[in-house]
């Protein structure tokens, strides 16, 4: 399965790129993170603090246990600071 993975704010800075295409068999967001984390030091740094991690699956807020299913786009970012 091929996914677009997006990063925002300081996760984007740590990973070093705003998006990447990954091929994965991960069942849940948490499984995907385990795979991404192994990709580079930057990825490891981005996912170091899981308490400050938020994600969206196909542009809907999700949690780490959310199934990836047939999703096309998974985004990772810190807690939002809008308004």
């Amino acid at each position, binding site marked *: 399965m091929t996914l677009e993975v997006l990063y925002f704010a300081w996760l984007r800075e740590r990973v070093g790129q705003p998006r990447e295409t990954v091929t994965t068999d991960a069942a849940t967001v948490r499984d995907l993170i385990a795979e991404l984390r192994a990709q580079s030091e930057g990825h490891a740094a981005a996912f170091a603090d899981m308490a400050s991690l938020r994600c969206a699956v196909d*542009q809907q807020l999700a949690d780490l246990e959310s199934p990836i299913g047939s999703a096309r786009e998974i985004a990772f970012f810190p807690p939002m*600071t809008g*308004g």
Partner: protein
Amino acid sequence: MTARVQTAPFDLAAEMAGFGLRAGALVTFTGVVRDDTGLMAALEIEHYPGMTERALQDYGMQAAARFDLTDWRIIHRHGRIPVGDPIMMVATAARHRHAAFQGADYLMDWLKSRAPFWKREIATDGTATWVTAKSSDEDALNRW
């Protein structure tokens, strides 16, 4: 019943022209870039194109259903926004004042913690610092 994401400044006056015409109560909230220390030049706001528009639309529709709003509007800027400039606004229209107030208050709590925007403070010396989410904003959301 519109949500907009834009880099351009907006004008409260222009936005309110014709807004909620048949309602009895109109509430607006405007957030402005504040400089508490005298050292801040601007905010720089990143967002998630695609998801942002959808999220704002969802929150607006949720607020409308919950508080029986006859109209609502959300505008949120991204990009670089200098001190003193408006960042975002919400407007709500309802028959009665409590609904209009609550609708706007509710929307603000959602936007603060659940809309995909990330703020960075740009100091006058050029240094940039990501704004940290406040637990009080999360608490505010849990009121509803």
